[in-house]
């Protein structure tokens, strides 16, 4: 299905409705988002594609409660994120969202295990931290500090840290951007596995169109609007992708 407007469905976890975001820098206004409407369904794997500066990160940040739209509405289930106070957004992130960024943002003074435990300490029903690190293939690296890990290993710790709380949604902004080919693929495999095994809604921003093949849906953003949405009838597993 093609078109600027996405469909609205009752079982959707996220409703994004006519969201705009305007940054004001002195006299200049930057329209980062110009009316985005979108639903995210349970368990789906979505890839956001688009040129640099098109508004991908802005949308992701609004979904994750890091930022609020200038107009329009965003619902996470029955929570209106648009009207939420800063404290509510914090609680929303804490309970429901996992983030993975291009730079891994690990706590340098904590070991891999401790970085993960940091999250289990504040969640209600987390997975086991060690279990999670095993899931991302770091069973041997539990007690290493970030400075003692490679970039790919750090990114896997970041993923473990993001999923250990069983988030409803996993938001990844260019998770493979700083990684080499092989490591990037490894990270994508892990994301796919998490999505499959934990049924976590996963949104991945990438500049790498090849990655789009592993998504349920691919959303193309351009100049702050949704240019098109494509549904992959047949998902491809990451090990079959190459770029």
């Amino acid at each position, binding site marked *: 299905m093609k078109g600027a407007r996405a469909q609205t469905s009752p079982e959707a976890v996220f409703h994004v409705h006519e969201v705009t975001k305007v940054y004001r820098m002195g006299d200049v206004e930057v329209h980062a988002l110009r009316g985005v409407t979108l639903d995210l369904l349970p368990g789906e794997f979505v890839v956001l594609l688009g040129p640099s500066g098109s508004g991908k990160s802005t949308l992701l940040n609004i979904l994750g409660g890091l930022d609020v739209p200038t107009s329009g509405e965003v619902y996470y289930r029955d929570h209106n994120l648009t009207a939420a106070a800063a404290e509510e957004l914090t609680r929303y*992130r804490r309970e429901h969202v996992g983030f993975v960024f291009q730079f891994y943002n690990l706590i340098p003074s904590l070991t891999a295990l401790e970085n993960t435990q940091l999250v289990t300490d504040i969640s209600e029903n987390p997975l086991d931290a060690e279990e999670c690190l095993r899931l991302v293939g770091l069973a041997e690296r539990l007690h290493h500090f970030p*400075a003692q890990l490679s970039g790919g290993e750090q990114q896997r710790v970041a993923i473990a840290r993001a999923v250990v709380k069983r988030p409803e949604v996993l938001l990844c902004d260019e998770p493979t951007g700083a990684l080499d080919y092989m490591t990037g693929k490894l990270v994508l495999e892990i994301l796919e596995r998490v999505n499959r095994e934990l049924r976590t809604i996963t949104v991945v921003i990438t500049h790498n169109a090849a990655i789009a093949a592993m998504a349920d849906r691919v959303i193309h953003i351009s100049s702050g609007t949704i240019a098109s949405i494509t549904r992959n009838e047949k998902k491809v597993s990451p090990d079959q992708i190459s770029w």
Partner: protein
Amino acid sequence: MTSLHRKLFRDLWHLRGQMLAVALVVACGIATWVTMRGAWGAIESAQQDYYTRYRFAGIFAQLKRAPDALARQIALIPGVASVQPRVVVEVNLDVPGLADPAVGRVISIPEHRRPMLNDLFLVEGRYVEPGRPEEVLVSAAFAAANQLGVGKTIGAVINGRWEKLKIVGIALSPEYVYEIRGAEVFPDNRRFGVLWMSREALGPMFNMEGAFNDVSLALAPGASQAGVIERLDTLLAPYGGLGAYDREEQISHRFTSDEIAQDRVTGIFVPAIFLGIAAFLIHIVLSRLIATQRNYIGLLKAFGYSDASVGLHYLEFALVAVLAGTALGIPLGIWLGRGLAGIYQDFFRFPELRFSAGPRILLWAVGISAAAACLGALGGLRSAISLPPAEAMRPESPPRFRRGLAEQFGLERLVSLSGRMILRNLERRPWKAILSALGMACAVAILIIGFYFYDAIDYIVQVEFQTAQRDDVTITFNEPRGTQARHDVGHLVGVLRAEPFRTVPARLRFGPRSRRIGITGLSPDAELRRVVDRQLQVIPIPPDGLLLSSKLAAILGVAPGDAVTVEVLEGSRPVRRVLVAGLADQLIGISAYMDIHGLNRLLREEGSISGANLAVDSAATPALYSLLKQTPSVSGVQVREAMLESFRQTIARSLSMSTMALVAFACVIAGAMVYNGARIALSERGHELASLRVLGFTQGEIAVMLLGEQAFLMLVSLPLGFALGYVICYALTIAMQTELYRMPLVLTPKTYVIAFSVVALASVFTGILIFRRLRRMDLIGVLKTRE
């Protein structure tokens, strides 16, 4: 303006909070420097100037009575430049508005004004006129304390008769810069004053026509003091000489000089603490700045800026902060200095005590603060200068963390994750942590020192005014009285209990050392007056021999069991050898005690007394006072409560300002340490904290992780500061062991609690400032960048 300067100003503005903290610490240091050095200079030069211009004598002696002709003989002693024979008597005064009796020391002056030793400076009014015996000049301190102006009259008991004395002038004398009566520690300007009266008027009143009982000498340059004193003593001995002494034993000079010496030490010591802390703060701020600007430094060097110009650029940060602090500190110091000079003026009466911070002091201020800046900048600059451009363009290698010491012993289960973060961050830079804790400890210690003085003084009051002295009133006769007097004092109106004492002027000699002292004879069963040492132990009066205060024993170099030579300076002036029976470690003065009967036996006299300590029925005190005021044989009346009250007021006045300044300074140090520590941590760990916020940690939770480091340092600094404060107080008690008083080493829990509370409050306040910054943290911006 070069682009480097533009960058300097932009960066300075960006770092304004931290720069301000540095500047404030520097301001405190410079203010204390200017205040203390200025005050020291002011009081020292005022003293020297005064002594020279008003011919302060070099040798002093009191005697019973000698004919004026003797003065001419004294003048012939080799080395004596001039002689000032005088009549000096103490009388009871009736001061308008003062119920209890006051003591006036009346000193004769020439009828016609002419230059003399210990010359007078007329503050107000005029000199006495010939032929007007009722005219007097009074000392400024006494006049001010009792609001006596020119034209007022006061009553005095002279030779058993009431005389009205008319005040025609207010005067100062170099002999009474610190106006205090012989045996007391603190001045009581309400109840003791100096009056000057014409010799022609005073002589006849006390049977001193053509005679004198006090003499001051000025020495020719190069004369031997000891030689002159010996010759003088020999000349005066037949006339009841009480032993000559030099300026070192002249009480006003002694106090003033002790104060000057102490100011000199504190004037160097205190500013040094502040500037040390300022240097440390500059070090951490600048090191961090240079670390964050690595790439920029590389760029500058790649563009061809020399190492020196890059180094200078960063040195300018330190200099701007420090010189701004100096600019703030100098006026603050002058303002505080003026206040301090005002307080000094209440204690030390100079014709002119003008606080002035001369160009020398100010130049030093700029110099030492610039030196502190350079010292602090050193480490950071070295790394900026030595950084090769290519290396600088690469990001700094990530911080290496280790599991902490405690964790290596498997104790990590005990510490939460945020606790581990705090500990590991501290352990990564142990020196920074140690110095930060030390800086905070200085703040704690400064407060402890400030409040220690209150503790020490409370303790002195407890020892001296409550345990040793328990009488209500002490009366002193103008000369020793016989057995009848013992009986009489007991029957004075309102007297519940009377305990006579005997005081005998004597010179104690042991080998080459000697000391003039009044030996006090007390009854062994005395209850109103006891000998109490610094441990609050009552030391019994030995039946035989002398009980000396430890300080006097140290001066003489004697120990219990030694025999000292006692040269009595009264009556038939017997010379005896007396055993030192014991020592009492007292806080105030130097004294020698004996059993009163033993003393009487020593003097071969029959139970004579010099005065009595009285317990008085409070209802009858007005009657007693007015009786005593008019009793000519009573030359001194001391009221314990009044002395205590005046002591407390004097102390409160002199301590409150310095305490306030210390509290303010400690707050500045604590605040600056916490603020800069937290800001640096925020700069180093901003990325990490922002990512924690993204993970869903609340502002409060990350504040704990950030400020926990500072809180931990503060907790560590507390015992450190307590210990440091204690050690410094101990050093102070050693340094302040003057003959006049010894500071006891007592610190009450209250002092520790105050020190803790002030530092904690200052830290919490600063923590709130930092907490508010956390709200403004840009989460998204941080995540876009690599750390």
